[in-house]
């Protein structure tokens, strides 16, 4: 039987902030697809106290203005898949959501949970890095914004203070922005990724080659990462065979994955390079 720590279910954000600020430190629960597994005690010390966020409708909803797509932290993968706004503005996120678990997990798991749980294999995390997303964090002290690039600071460690909650994700929508996503796992459903890649770029009329190239990866380091040397190598180039070869070669030299239960360092290095090569080829249509 799993442990059953005390839980409070606040019905407003103000109550939730107060509950998070109490002692002993609490872990928030959203859809529970990670936290409920932690309560089995097989993944280390389970939390002493839990704050249930599920009823906080202020953390739901997807909206878009001319500049950005804003997504509430409690948005489930199923809601992302069904969202016309996500399909229009960020189809790569819809693709990513469809690769996570299967229907049962997609109905409960949330984007905020994926981000705050901070697994290096978190399937949506490279999307946020590649899209230069920012996260709104809130606590009893007020709100602040942190860039995705500054959020995952070490293995399963984030920029969140112990009493802070992730509220919203903001994805800037620049003209000519594109993003492609690919996950490699043991099978198509219910798999934790061996390698996950998001590739983003802009095509600006009158500008030669891709601009603002981003290459972000999961499962190849202690945190989700950006491959900055590979980005520099690709910047200003078109998706032609020479670019794909150069990008793949640069990426293979840049990342330092490890062997673990799901895969080997060598496999991850080779597959990351090949998947990036393929994404560039698909974008170039050759």
């Amino acid at each position, binding site marked *: 039987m799993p442990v059953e720590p005390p839980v409070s279910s606040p019905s407003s954000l103000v109550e939730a902030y107060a509950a998070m600020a109490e002692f002993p430190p609490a872990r928030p629960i959203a859809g*529970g697809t990670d936290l409920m597994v932690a309560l*089995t005690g097989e993944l280390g010390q389970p939390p002493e106290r839990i704050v249930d966020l599920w009823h906080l409708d202020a953390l739901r909803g997807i909206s878009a203005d001319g500049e950005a797509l804003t997504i509430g932290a409690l948005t489930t993968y199923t809601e992302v898949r069904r969202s016309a706004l996500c399909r229009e503005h960020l189809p790569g996120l819809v693709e990513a959501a469809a690769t996570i678990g299967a229907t049962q997990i997609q109905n409960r798991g949330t984007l905020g949970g994926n981000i705050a749980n901070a697994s290096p294999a978190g399937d949506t995390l490279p999307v946020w890095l590649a899209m230069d997303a920012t996260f709104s964090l809130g606590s009893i002290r007020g709100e602040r914004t942190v860039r995705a690039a500054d959020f995952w600071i070490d293995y399963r460690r984030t920029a969140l203070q112990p009493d802070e909650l992730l509220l919203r994700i903001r994805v800037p929508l620049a003209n000519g922005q594109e993003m492609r996503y690919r996950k490699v796992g043991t099978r198509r459903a219910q798999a934790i990724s061996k390698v996950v890649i998001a590739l983003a770029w802009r095509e600006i009329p009158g500008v030669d080659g891709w601009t603002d190239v981003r290459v972000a990866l999961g499962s190849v380091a202690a945190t989700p990462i950006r491959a900055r040397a590979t980005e520099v190598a690709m910047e200003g180039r078109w998706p032609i065979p020479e670019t794909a070869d150069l990008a793949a070669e640069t990426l293979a030299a840049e990342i330092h994955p490890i062997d673990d239960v799901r895969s080997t360092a060598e496999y991850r290095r080779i597959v990351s390079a090949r998947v990036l090569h393929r994404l560039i080829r698909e974008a170039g249509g050759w």
Partner: protein
Amino acid sequence: MTIFRLTVNETAVEVDVPGMRRLLDVLRDELALTGTKEGCGEGECGACTVLLDGAPVVACLVPICQAEGAVVRTVEGLAGPAHQLDALQAAFLETGGAQCGICTPGMLMSAQAYLDAGGGPDDGAIRDAIAGNLCRCTGYTKIIEAIALAASGRVVRAE
């Protein structure tokens, strides 16, 4: 302990349990609905799939505090009042869609959600719908046939 109220198989129920008690344990131990099985207990296998407000979820990952006020449907809610099988259950019987039986309640509930959403006898779509349900007997072919049969509306009632 806290009192939680929910509707299970069209009956209003009240349970007095810790808020982090798994919905799975509430169904099996408090409500004696042991049709819902525990397989892995960590959301991998789908054996404990139930419908929560119409959506398939794994009951091992839902704390009861998040099911307050919800409408839950379990495998016991499929058959009619005189225990007559519904079309989906009859289809499993007809095609041999059940072997050892541990995955069957979860398979039935994922399949029921698929049918409720208007799913048809399409092999790929059915495979997607049950991608979160593992059958250790590997009897997927017969299960997919059963769901396709129920979706086609051509089930011979096996009563």
